[in-house]
């Protein structure tokens, strides 16, 4: 993947998450679009690109959130790396498979965030079912819908996408 494209995507997705995702929030829970973008960059660009994108997005998210700097950086780095490692093996897998992987990844991110909050405030385990599970579900659904739409639009051109990635 083109480095400039990756940087532009990473820089755009964080303000988009802060400004726009509130409009599609369900019961106050918003999908983790920066995480989805990092996962996608990892899938298409490999572990190094995914990891770098995860670092950049995680740093921006941490900087603009009310919490410590670090937890999101580590979480997004891991998501980018996992996306990169899975990359070419799973690029053409169906939307449900990617949805399931994203659910697992974002649930793990939720557990990690709950631990950081518990470590800081001594409580917050309720966030596991109040925030982590709904966020993982919503994000997975968004990934599945996004992939389904993308596949319908691209059709047989997915083969070309594979060639593009191989190059």
């Amino acid at each position, binding site marked *: 993947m083109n480095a400039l494209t990756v940087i532009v995507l990473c820089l755009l997705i964080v303000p988009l998450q802060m400004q726009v995702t509130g409009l599609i929030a369900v019961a106050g829970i918003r999908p*983790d679009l920066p995480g989805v973008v990092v996962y996608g960059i990892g899938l298409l660009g490999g572990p190094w690109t995914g990891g770098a994108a995860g670092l950049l997005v995680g740093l921006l998210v941490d900087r603009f*959130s009310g*919490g410590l700097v670090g937890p999101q950086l580590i979480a997004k780095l891991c998501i980018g790396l996992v996306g990169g490692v899975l990359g070419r093996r799973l690029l053409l897998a169906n939307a449900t498979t990617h949805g399931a992987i994203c659910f697992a990844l974002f649930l793990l991110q939720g557990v990690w965030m709950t631990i950081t909050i518990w470590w800081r*405030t001594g409580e917050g385990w*309720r966030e596991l079912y109040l925030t982590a599970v709904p966020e993982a579900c919503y994000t997975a659904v968004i990934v599945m819908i996004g992939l389904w739409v993308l596949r319908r639009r691209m059709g047989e051109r997915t083969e070309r996408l594979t060639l593009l990635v191989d190059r």
Partner: protein
Amino acid sequence: MRWSWLTRTRGLAVLAGVAFLLILFSPQIQRRPLMIIEQPLLLIESWLQRAIGGIRTAASDWTDRYVDLWNLGDENRRLRDQVARLEQEVAHLQEQLGAAGRRDDLDAFGKTFTDLAMVADVIGRDPTNWYQSVVINRGQRDGVKMDMGVAVQDGVVGRVVKVMPKTAVVLLVSDRNSVVPGLIQRGRDEGLIEGVGGKRLRMKYVSTLASVQVGDLVITSGLAGTFPKELRIGTVSAIERMPDAISQELMLTPAVDLDRLEEVLVLPLMDVETETVR
């Protein structure tokens, strides 16, 4: 015989013609027209004129309308566009007027504490679901510092936790990491107000001897230097008394609707002892 009759008739006709012309052009007739001939002619003429005028007007109207019809579609579209643009402009101006009014109110409210309070716009929400914070369009270059209090007329919003050159992150009072010292307005009993996530606050370390009722107002105590005294924090919605405990916990409903923040007031840090700006 025949010739003579014709000659005679022609002669009479010429005579009659000459006589008619003489009569017609005589000064008497010129001054006073022949009413019998003139009036019916004028009447007919006027009818004709009216009729022709009517037809002309009708034809003109019809052609005008026909020509207008050609342009009507375009004009209609143009006017619709114009109406839509004007409606948008009106809505935009009303929004600006409302925002300016709110900013003025907020500014006046800030002046009741200090002249150094500054109005800021909320430009974004926390990018994660894990913290409750907002981003404002004032930063280090505007004089914003860590731990400065942020409020609106209704009460406390939160405090500044991250400062960037042109923006700052405000941790809302409802976040788990937020702690604000406050007191119950009626009984003057003190405690610490924490966020519990969601839309509720918890007041901890309130003495069991304190007489608290649901609906009591909780205000800032001014002890931490972040907020001046007597800003509203919330109202007591539930009281949790544990047996054998030395303190009780109160659940509060925030005074400010934290989901609908548009403009906020950034308050300067206060010296607790002198109650002046640091």
